[in-house]
């Protein structure tokens, strides 16, 4: 019974790990970059040189909106994170029925003057890619990601049962032992960061809770809208009075929010009916410290009087909020963010080594190793195409950011296309080559692409590695050094594939035979 249980768990682990494995690898990889999405955005917007939002800029934003769109139905201000990376984004929407046009503008976070930034989605895109995927409807992507995450949870739990010796062999890695080494690498990256993997997979599912578990809503509410109205109460409804009154300076409204939230920063502002005595300023907080959440705040836009807001979030919503905070790691300061990053990278290595292990294990048992069956070849090609292709895509995304002309039409979309073109190219290339050669070549190509990023950046902007070092701009310095480190890591991996001795198992068998004969 016991052996049967473990065997069935092993089977489940193999297939629950393999089938969504490639998608999970991509999710882990892009999700791991998302811990540094603001820093990536900073690097991808080299024209942006100031990051913290000043009161001067907030007031200038208000004046800008007043000048550009005095009769708009609403104004919105999106405040950049305190880690920077984004401009102070203002936009306006025309009043319903007025036939006017909406618009938006990037403002300098320090001065409030309009900025000309290259069109890019920055680190935000890599973050969205890890649960919205791309080239498909968002909801469809989220179903796929949810199912993959559920399978991941199954694979993690069955993995603990399957690799029963992980706790007995907790500290053990045996290198240069073929299949055994892959198994150890898989176990070690899995077990050492197991709390992280379990937490991430579970809280990841919680962030997309109602995608696969909509029944809590359908059982208790008439429709989705009724649920959202109850769970996320909207602010006070005030009709425009038609009497004019100027909007209070934005910096005053923001300062008011700070004091109401005990230091919490607003991340998003919307002013309904600006310029009217009945205008309403709605403010939503940024993600704060772990375990804290502030309710949105409503003020009279003209008089600054606090307006009643909806009900406080219930216990379930607060619990969900903490889980989302744990998942995004936005509360983490620099040291802890690097720990998140390394654990995430460990997760990607765990998935990759598990995928490779599948082929290593089966290669020895192939009837004819020179002509493997279709399934084996498919897995082998997908492994190369995804494990080396996705990182190559990220490098291409960064390179495109520097190389595409600044005035190009739909530039941001083309940066993203470049990511997938490079990824696709790795697939095509690797499918045309013998497996070992393909690994060597695409890993070397990855190394080259990553090494190129700082070089191209230095050649195309004034913010290369050395000027940044000189200016003490540590985000740019660390970004460039991280790219070089990635390049080094891929070069090392490529070299390891070259020097690897493939006939290990055959030789061991021969030695065993010789010993038994003696």
């Amino acid at each position, binding site marked *: 019974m016991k052996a049967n249980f473990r065997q069935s768990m092993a089977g489940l682990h193999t297939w629950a790990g393999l089938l969504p494995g490639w998608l999970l690898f991509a999710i882990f990889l892009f999700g791991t970059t998302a811990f540094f999405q603001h820093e990536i955005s900073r690097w991808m917007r080299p024209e942006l040189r100031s990051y913290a939002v000043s009161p001067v800029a907030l007031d200038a934003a208000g004046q800008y909106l007043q000048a550009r769109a005095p009769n708009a139905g609403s104004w919105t201000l999106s405040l950049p994170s305190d880690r920077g990376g984004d401009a102070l984004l203002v936009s306006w929407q025309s009043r319903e029925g007025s036939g006017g046009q909406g618009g938006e503008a990037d403002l300098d976070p320090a001065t409030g003057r309009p900025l000309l930034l290259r069109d890019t989605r920055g680190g935000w895109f890599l973050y969205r890619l890890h649960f919205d995927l791309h080239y498909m409807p968002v909801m469809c992507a989220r179903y796929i990601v949810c199912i993959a995450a559920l399978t991941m949870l199954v694979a993690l739990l069955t993995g603990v049962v399957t690799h029963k010796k992980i706790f007995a062999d*907790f500290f*053990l890695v045996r290198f240069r032992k073929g299949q055994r080494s892959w198994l150890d690498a898989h176990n070690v990256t899995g077990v050492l960061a197991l709390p992280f993997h379990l937490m991430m997979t579970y809280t990841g599912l919680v962030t997309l809770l109602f995608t696969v578990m909509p029944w809590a809503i359908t059982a208790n509410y008439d429709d989705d809208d009724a649920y959202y109205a109850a769970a996320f109460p909207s602010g006070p409804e005030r009709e425009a009075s038609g009497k004019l009154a100027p909007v209070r300076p934005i910096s005053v409204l923001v300062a008011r929010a700070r004091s109401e939230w005990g230091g919490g920063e607003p991340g998003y502002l919307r002013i309904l009916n600006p310029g009217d005595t009945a205008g309403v300023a709605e403010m939503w907080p940024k993600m704060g410290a772990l375990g804290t959440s502030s309710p949105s705040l409503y003020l009279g836009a003209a008089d600054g009087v606090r307006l009643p807001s909806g009900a406080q979030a219930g216990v379930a919503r607060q619990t969900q909020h903490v889980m989302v905070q744990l998942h995004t790691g936005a509360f983490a300061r620099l040291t*802890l963010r690097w720990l998140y990053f390394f654990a995430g990278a460990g997760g990607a290595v765990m998935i990759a080594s598990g995928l490779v292990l599948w082929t290593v294990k089966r290669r020895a048992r192939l009837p004819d190793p020179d002509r493997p069956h279709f399934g084996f070849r498919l897995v082998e090609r997908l492994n190369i195409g995804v494990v080396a292709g996705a990182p190559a895509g990220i490098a291409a995304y960064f390179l495109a950011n520097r190389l595409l002309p600044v005035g190009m039409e739909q530039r941001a979309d083309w940066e993203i296309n470049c990511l997938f073109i490079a990824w696709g190219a790795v697939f095509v290339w690797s499918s045309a080559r013998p497996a070992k050669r393909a690994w060597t070549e695409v890993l070397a190509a990855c190394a080259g692409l990553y090494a190129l990023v700082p070089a191209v950046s230095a050649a195309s902007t004034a913010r290369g590695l050395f000027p940044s070092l000189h200016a003490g701009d540590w985000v740019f310095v660390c970004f460039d050094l991280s790219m070089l480190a990635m390049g080094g890591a891929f070069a090392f991996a490529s070299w390891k594939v070259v020097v690897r001795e493939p006939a290990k198992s055959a030789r061991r068998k021969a030695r065993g035979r010789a010993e038994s004969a003696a």
Partner: protein
Amino acid sequence: MIDIAVLLLVLAGFGFLLMAMPRHQQDWLKRKLSQAHAHSLRLSGLVMLAAAYGVSGRGLGWAYGTVAWFGWLTVAAAIVVTVNTNCGAIMENFRFRPSRKRDTSHHLGRKSC
């Protein structure tokens, strides 16, 4: 600062847990410790991991400290695994210097008594 203290504590904790395992005693000490010694090593290791949690929680706040503690656990375990994997090479280096070797064996002998 708190982070460094937590890291050192969990490193020591995992080091003790490593030395509580007979297989690794064989690798590092070239002999096996008694059951009682292994038991007290394991206990000390666990106490250190728990102490690190206390330090992390008191120093960084219990919510933040818990997340940080898990992170440092992973890092420390990874370091101990790396060191243990290179056990052969590290022992080799000791063997090259005879005077050092005497020191270590003396030291280790005292530690295990």
